[in-house]
């Protein structure tokens, strides 16, 4: 296998009884790049991460990380990887500094080196003031940062982040994403699982969409969005009788014929058509009174509906579609 790839997996399978958590997963991540593994709960994301981090042997298939086989070279591989799991795995009865020192010792960095590295990371993750407080006094965001710091203690060339921002408030989330970006800029290869498209969008060079234990789509975020269709415009009319007039006015901006659904005109926006401003101008010119006008961007739900013909069925998607709709007062 080529060493251009920091992570290579072929035909990974894993079943728990009758449940096929992974049904033949292939993945390739170039050294120094970020792969976003996107999918709903139960899609197999965590199982894939557990296999790639040597926690779980696959039933079939093989994988190499940093050039080492995840089964045959498991113990050598463990010194090359860092893992931050779904549940911030910090010891609550140790201080932040003690947590990182312990991890350093277990990476066999030695006592002095472990202490030095712990201080360095606490500072970088803005935990230096809380360094000597017990982790049980930390907020959710601080725990996540400590967990991520633990994954970076030994400066591993490959890190795995399993839904690193789940349960974080927006500010902590932004801080964590910045930190990950800094690691990537320094040359680390990252595999990140997420349920939210914009997170994958922001961090990942390539995105693999996983569902029912299979990779159902792979590509850059633009490629995936292309499959889903771009932005959609939704116009709520003040007077339903003006619906036809609005459809005529907006037709030149649409990739497809606008449709009317329950007093709302919906259309896929043509790229470079002038956007929402042009739409408002045209509606004004046509004398169509609008109550509300909004741009809807593709969400994880849209990706799923487009790829699988069904909704992603999870809470994050519901929250996501609200965020994705930007309302403009008319």
């Amino acid at each position, binding site marked *: 296998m080529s060493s251009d790839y920091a992570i290579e997996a072929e035909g990974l399978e894993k079943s*728990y009884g009758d449940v096929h958590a992974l049904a033949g997963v292939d993945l390739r991540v170039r050294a120094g790049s970020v792969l976003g593994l996107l999918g709903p709960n139960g899609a197999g994301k965590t199982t894939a991460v*557990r296999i790639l*981090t*040597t*926690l*779980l*042997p696959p039933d079939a298939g093989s994988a190499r990380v940093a050039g080492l086989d995840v089964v045959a070279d498991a*113990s*050598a591989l*463990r*010194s090359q*990887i*860092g*893992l931050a*799991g*779904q*549940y*911030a*795995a*910090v*010891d*609550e*009865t*140790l201080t932040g500094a*003690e947590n990182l020192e*312990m*991890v350093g*010792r*277990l*990476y*066999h960095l030695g006592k002095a080196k472990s202490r030095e590295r712990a201080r360095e990371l606490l500072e970088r993750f803005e935990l230096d003031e809380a360094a000597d407080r*017990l982790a049980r006094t930390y907020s959710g965001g601080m725990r996540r940062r400590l967990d991520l710091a*633990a994954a970076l203690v030994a400066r591993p060339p490959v890190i795995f982040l399993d839904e690193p921002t789940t349960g974080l408030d927006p500010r902590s989330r932004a801080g964590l994403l910045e930190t990950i970006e800094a690691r990537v800029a320094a040359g680390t290869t990252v595999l990140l699982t997420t349920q939210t498209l914009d997170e994958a969008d922001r961090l990942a060079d390539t995105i693999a969409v996983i569902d029912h234990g299979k990779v159902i789509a792979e590509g850059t975020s633009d490629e995936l969005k292309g499959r889903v269709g771009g932005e959609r415009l939704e116009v709520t009319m003040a007077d339903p009788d003006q619906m036809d007039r609005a459809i005529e006015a907006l037709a030149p901006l649409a990739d497809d014929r606008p449709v009317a659904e329950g007093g709302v005109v919906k259309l896929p926006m043509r790229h470079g058509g002038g956007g929402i401003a042009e739409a408002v101008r045209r509606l004004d010119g046509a004398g169509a009174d609008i109550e509300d006008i909004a741009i809807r961007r593709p969400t994880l739900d849209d990706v799923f509906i487009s790829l699988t013909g069904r909704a992603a069925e999870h809470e994050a998607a519901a929250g996501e579609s609200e965020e994705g709709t930007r309302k403009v007062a008319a």
Partner: protein
Amino acid sequence: MSAFQYAASDTLVLAKRNLSRIPRAPDLLIAYTVQPVMFVLLFVYVFGGAIQLPPEFGDYTDFLMPGIVVQTMAFGGFVTAIGLSEDLKKGLIDRFRSLPIARSAVLAGRTLSDIALNLLSISIMVGVGVLVGLTFETSVLEVLAGVALLLLFGYAWSWFFALMGLTASSSESAQAMGFIVIFPLTFASSAFVPPESMPAGLQAFAEVNPFSTVTEAIRALWLGTPANTDIWMSVVWSVGLILVLAPLAAAKYRRAANR
């Protein structure tokens, strides 16, 4: 460093981590300090006067202390059950398993730190015992041999609690499962009352119960009562329990983590 030195160092790092939580978790500290003292005082002063002793024992305190320390040793491993159960639930076991450490280090670190805690319990109980009238009738060497035997027996039960911690669905039920097994075993033994006062069937059980064997061995080493085969049988029981329970716990650890 060799693989063995790494394994030893990993185990010590993890044992230190387990111990450092004790003074920070006041409820656990109470379990290790106040609770044994409470048991000693309750038994000595509540039951002490009511129990008919064999003639070789001067008073109930002497009779009780070896038994109650043996019981405390068996329960000492509950911290391992709680700790492993919580580590599994909170994802710390995953973190440890993703690190380049010896496979054995997590369980070995747990059971090793139990030894230190059990030594603390023995010191406190013996201290209180002496205050309420315990007198050693043997040499310092024999007393220390008794302490070593107690720690060995406690170590065997740590593996039992490790198994419980990895089997039960929560730390509370792990603890409860452990107590359901150990409580009847300790009471249906010669630890608190002479088996002669029990109904025939129970008496027969008490005589083959390893808790009786270890209690009699400690009485021999501390009070100078006849040892018979009790000391060697205590070692055999302890080593036997470790040989059965440690591989079971290790197998359970691999499976529990492989989910």
